[in-house]
């Protein structure tokens, strides 16, 4: 399908592959199938990727040179590049392929481990691998090295919006002609002593250990780990090589609250502006949207301000559009969340299904949208007026610091 774009004939970024390693298991299909079935990857108040075996994706040497967040990215990238047909050989000149992978924190587990070595055994015992293990661009570097990617390559850091910002940045590279293809997404493995204690200290995480976004009883997010990686290509180039197109990033926008270090601005004004700008970027309006994949962290503040932002940006249509949160079953993957949730969104659109906000039962005052309680349901794409039907969603990501990144996605 050729989309009519608001800005004329710019290049478009289609999605030709993705991979996900999440607390629900290894693989994007596992993620969407288990989520749609209402299964949860949360146990004992955290969401770990217990099914992930690094040895299935890399040598022992590569594994010990990679922090867990990089290992997860390598695994997700392997699935994504395989799906896109990039695994054997890049179908583009390597200098025209970009690699941008976001993270909230980077190799925190490695940093904590080496901090222990420094305290116990002194500076001369600190591992020479410490810096490459913990640096925030380690996942991008490892994926680029593994697959011979020679274009724009860097990490991207914007807390819990990093995955969406990375995808948006990759889309812009393709649109502007800086790259013909991009490997992009997010990775996080911050289930470490410091991070768990620190998020708890600021009151961000759930004391009950339950993730129930938008429910009146919500009391914070459940920390998770994982990675999501997508392959994006210039639409025309993908068509020329006969690639299977899974979806398209129709629009992207990012704004900043400039309000508070951690709390979202209560009215959600800048989050709403990001949603509206992403729709404008896609050349679409609220009436074209079939589904909202919410940031929906299960924190009291986010879920309220996000609801306000959706109402503000989508008007009356906000009450029609089903809104659900992937975090209800995998917790909050921080810098990987935006990428994993974009993948879940596209896969849901492709399957014409709306996965539920698992655990949602009690309505909170003012949180009066359709949060898709209990079970998944059929997604009915809106007619665009000329008889063809597209299935389109927005995926929200908001990060500490007031960073808002919104993707408008189509599944095919």
């Amino acid at each position, binding site marked *: 399908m050729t989309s009519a774009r608001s800005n004329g004939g710019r290049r478009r970024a289609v999605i030709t592959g993705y991979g996900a390693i999440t607390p629900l298991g290894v693989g994007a299909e596992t993620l969407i199938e288990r989520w749609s079935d209402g299964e949860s990857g949360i146990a004992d108040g955290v969401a770990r990727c217990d099914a992930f075996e690094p040895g299935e994706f890399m*040598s*022992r*040497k*590569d594994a*010990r*040179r990679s922090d867990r967040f990089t290992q997860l990215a390598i695994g997700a990238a392997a699935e994504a590049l395989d799906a896109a047909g990039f695994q054997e050989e890049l179908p583009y000149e390597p200098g025209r392929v970009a690699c941008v992978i976001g993270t909230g924190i980077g190799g925190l587990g490695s940093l904590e481990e080496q901090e222990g070595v420094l305290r116990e055994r002194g500076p*001369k*015992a600190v*591992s*020479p*691998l410490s810096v*490459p293990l913990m640096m925030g661009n380690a996942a991008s570097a490892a994926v680029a090295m593994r697959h011979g990617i020679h274009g724009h390559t860097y990490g991207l850091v914007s807390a819990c919006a990093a995955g969406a910002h990375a995808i948006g940045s990759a889309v812009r590279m393709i649109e502007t002609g800086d790259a013909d293809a991009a490997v992009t997404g997010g990775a996080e493995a911050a289930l470490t002593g410091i991070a768990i204690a620190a998020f708890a200290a600021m009151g961000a995480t759930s004391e009950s250990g339950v993730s129930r976004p938008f429910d009146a009883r919500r009391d914070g997010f459940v920390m998770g780990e994982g990675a999501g990686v997508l392959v994006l290509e210039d639409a025309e180039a993908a068509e020329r090589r006969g690639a299977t197109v899974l979806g398209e990033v129709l629009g992207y926008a990012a704004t900043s609250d400039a309000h508070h270090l951690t709390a979202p601005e209560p009215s959600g004004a800048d989050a709403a502006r990001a949603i509206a700008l992403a729709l404008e970027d896609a050349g679409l309006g609220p009436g074209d949207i079939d589904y909202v994949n919410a940031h929906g962290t299960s924190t009291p503040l986010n879920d309220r301000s996000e609801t306000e932002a959706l109402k503000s940006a989508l008007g009356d249509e906000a009450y029609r559009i089903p809104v659900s949160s992937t975090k209800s079953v995998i917790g909050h993957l921080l810098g990987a969340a935006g990428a994993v949730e974009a993948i879940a969104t596209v896969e849901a659109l492709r399957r014409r299904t709306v996965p539920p906000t698992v655990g949602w039962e009690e309505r909170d005052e003012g949180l009066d949208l359709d949060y898709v309680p209990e079970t998944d349901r059929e997604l009915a794409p809106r007619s665009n007026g000329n008889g063809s039907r597209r299935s389109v969603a927005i995926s929200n990501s908001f990060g500490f610091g007031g960073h808002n990144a919104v993707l408008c996605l189509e599944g095919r």
Partner: protein
Amino acid sequence: MTTEQVTTDRVEQVIFDGLAEVGAERDAINRDASFEDLDVDSLDLVEIAQIIEDEFGVELEGDAVADLTNVGQVIDLVVARSQS
């Protein structure tokens, strides 16, 4: 630092184990193997040097190992340093 007698066999064993630890193929490790063949780079050599210092108290600074290209040369250097 250990007080036990530093023998060539003991140094060889520690270095072979260290190389395996940093990811070299155990079957490919021998005195004549080059670091290039073992896919051992400068970061690995720093880890090997840390292991050697822990085991034998022999400090191998960067300059000392920069020109070494195979496993036997490191073994000989450590044995010589530990006896001097």
